[in-house]
């Protein structure tokens, strides 16, 4: 399984450049996050990958096929969950999935089993015979996910799947997506909820103004310096302890003291040292998610320009 490869893709609508120059790798067996401010071209890129738009230039391969010249080969292997969650309002959840299964030419008996399995997976089994117009936004999102999974795709394109989901559904979505990746699927997920992606994604591709800005690995234990937050029962003793260890730190705040830490190993070392020195430690955690930190740093310029 080959996942997705995007190289030098550009797409304009009239004189609006939606995607300027994007490069992207989505390896099989991993969850790749597509992160960027509004209007940075995420949805346009996903539409190109979902065989609905042609790129102006650049090469795209989805599951090894070209979405422009071999769209059907791509469609057979790709599940797409759009951000606009339109649904056939009067059909029941089961009928929606059955229609999509027919559209993918799945054999009927196998499809019926698959539909029941998916309805259970997205916790809509008790709403299976209800028309989709009674579903809440989050339930529609979950139905949309089941729809994208109906033909067991090896590439999954999820456009803002977490929007509208309650905390529990988000955690469950994370479980589903991780499970698919573990089984070998290549998952590309666009989202604004950065903290969420930290735990969900293996890698993050950060885009801004239609360009790929950076590719961040989100593997734990990396050596990227970033601020951590330390809390102790006694701020004064914590500050004294940090000074004694020669660590650079900020002043005491309501959430504790911020310290620049180089890596996970560094964090473990610092904690051990503080405890040894008798500082009554309560908590030590990154001040921001890995992704959030990288994202804010990388998109700063783009954001300030956008907001001007």
């Amino acid at each position: 399984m080959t996942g997705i490869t995007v190289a030098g893709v550009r797409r304009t609508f009239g004189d609006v450049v939606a995607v300027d120059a994007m490069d992207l790798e989505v390896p099989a067996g991993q969850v790749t996050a597509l992160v960027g401010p509004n209007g940075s071209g995420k949805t346009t890129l996903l539409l190109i990958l979902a065989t609905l738009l042609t790129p102006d230039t650049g090469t795209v391969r989805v599951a090894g096929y070209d979405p422009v010249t071999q769209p059907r080969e791509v469609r057979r292997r790709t599940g797409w969950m759009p951000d606009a969650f339109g649904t056939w309002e009067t059909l029941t959840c089961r009928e929606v999935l059955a229609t999509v299964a027919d559209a993918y030419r799945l054999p009927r008996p196998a499809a019926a089993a698959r539909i029941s399995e998916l309805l259970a997976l997205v916790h809509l089994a008790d709403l299976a015979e209800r028309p989709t117009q009674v579903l809440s936004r989050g339930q529609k999102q979950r139905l949309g996910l089941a729809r994208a999974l109906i033909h067991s795709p090896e590439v999954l394109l999820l456009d803002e799947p977490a929007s509208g989901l309650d905390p529990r559904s988000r955690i469950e979505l994370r479980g589903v997506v991780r499970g698919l990746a573990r089984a070998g699927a290549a998952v590309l997920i666009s989202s604004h909820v950065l903290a969420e992606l930290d735990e969900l994604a293996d890698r993050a591709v950060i885009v801004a103004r239609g360009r790929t800005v950076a590719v961040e690995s989100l593997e734990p234990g990396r050596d990227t310096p970033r601020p951590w937050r330390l809390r102790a029962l006694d701020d004064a003793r914590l500050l004294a302890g940090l000074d004694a260890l020669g660590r650079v730190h900020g002043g005491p705040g309501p959430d504790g003291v911020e310290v620049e830490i180089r890596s996970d190993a560094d964090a473990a070392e610092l904690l051990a040292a503080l405890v040894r020195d008798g500082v009554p430690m309560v908590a030590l955690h990154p001040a921001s998610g890995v992704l959030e930190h990288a994202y804010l740093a990388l998109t700063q310029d783009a954001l300030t320009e956008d907001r001007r």
Partner: protein
Amino acid sequence: MSGTETLGEAPPAGGPPPALPGAGTWTLSRAGIATVARLELRQRVRSTRWIIVLALWGLVLIGLAALIHHAVFAGTGSSVVTEGTDGWDPTGRAGAQMYGWVVVLVLVLGSLVAPALSATSINGDRSAGVLATLQATLLSPAEIALGKLLAAWVTALALLAVASPALLWAVLSGGTPAGRLVVTVALLAVVLLLECAIGLGWSAVTARTASSAVLTYLSVAFLGLGLPMLFGLLLSVAQRSETVTERVMLPVPNAAAPAEGQAPPLHCVSTTTTETVTHYEWIAWLLVPNPLVVIADASPPPRYRGGMAYDDVLTGLRSGVRTLRLGPAPRDSCYEVDATGTPRFAEDDGRSAERERLGAVWPYGLATELAIGAAFTVITVRRLRAPVRTLARGTRVA
């Protein structure tokens, strides 16, 4: 979470859906069309109060058919008594007249409803965000288009089915042979299909549902009303000043005075004048694609005893259009007088032979209608192709 592990096996276990031969825009399979048609019909049945709509439609038709029945049979009351005495069948004549008007009624009311069945089908789906999810599946553009067309047509045929009591009443009133019924109903179905195809085409081309609805009704009105009006307006253009030869019988000049009680001898004289002639045969083809003309021209004539001067609306239209194609009649009132003194007109002025040679007009009309429907369907399919290079203004993919 509970389902994760079972799903985890999904991609290798399921594998991609089976490969299908021929993977283009025009790939067609019965299953694909049926999938789309079923989806459309299911939504239509559930989202509209269709039983009420159909019941109202049927009641309106029966009510109007009753009025037509009353109107055409009102004058036959006394004649019915004389039926059989002279072989004249006034009931059959009234029945044929009623049938003609009921067909016109069904066509007009059907043309008011049928376009609405498809006129917002594609742009409506697009703005509801449900079209792209179909396009991203293995359904081909042709399957989506034909599935939607089929669903709209089936709905239109339901309207036609509910109209059948009115039609049957007219048939049972007499004068209408079975062949006439079969042909008119079949052609009504074709006209409804054409109107659905026009609506679907406009809904694929325009971004806003209001625009496609207006354009669809304008197109249908153009065929039904616009073309005859255009014909009428162009009559003043299709004129030419030309020399017209007229042949009349005039008394022979300087002839000896006829004997008592005898007509003066006459002979045939050709006179030529220059006058403005309206060549309606030049523009008569404008009437040919008109749905009513096609139905009227193709339907076998009514049959009833003594029924020579068919004066129902359909037969009238049929002979009217066929005569219009011939152009102005030659002006020839000459005749020969045979030995017994009986005037004998030329056996044939050539017009009926010419009319025979030109034949029926409905094949051209029907072919034109089918071509229009096919063109709109091709446009629809092309507009459903994905991935798209260009987007219409104001539209989104999803």
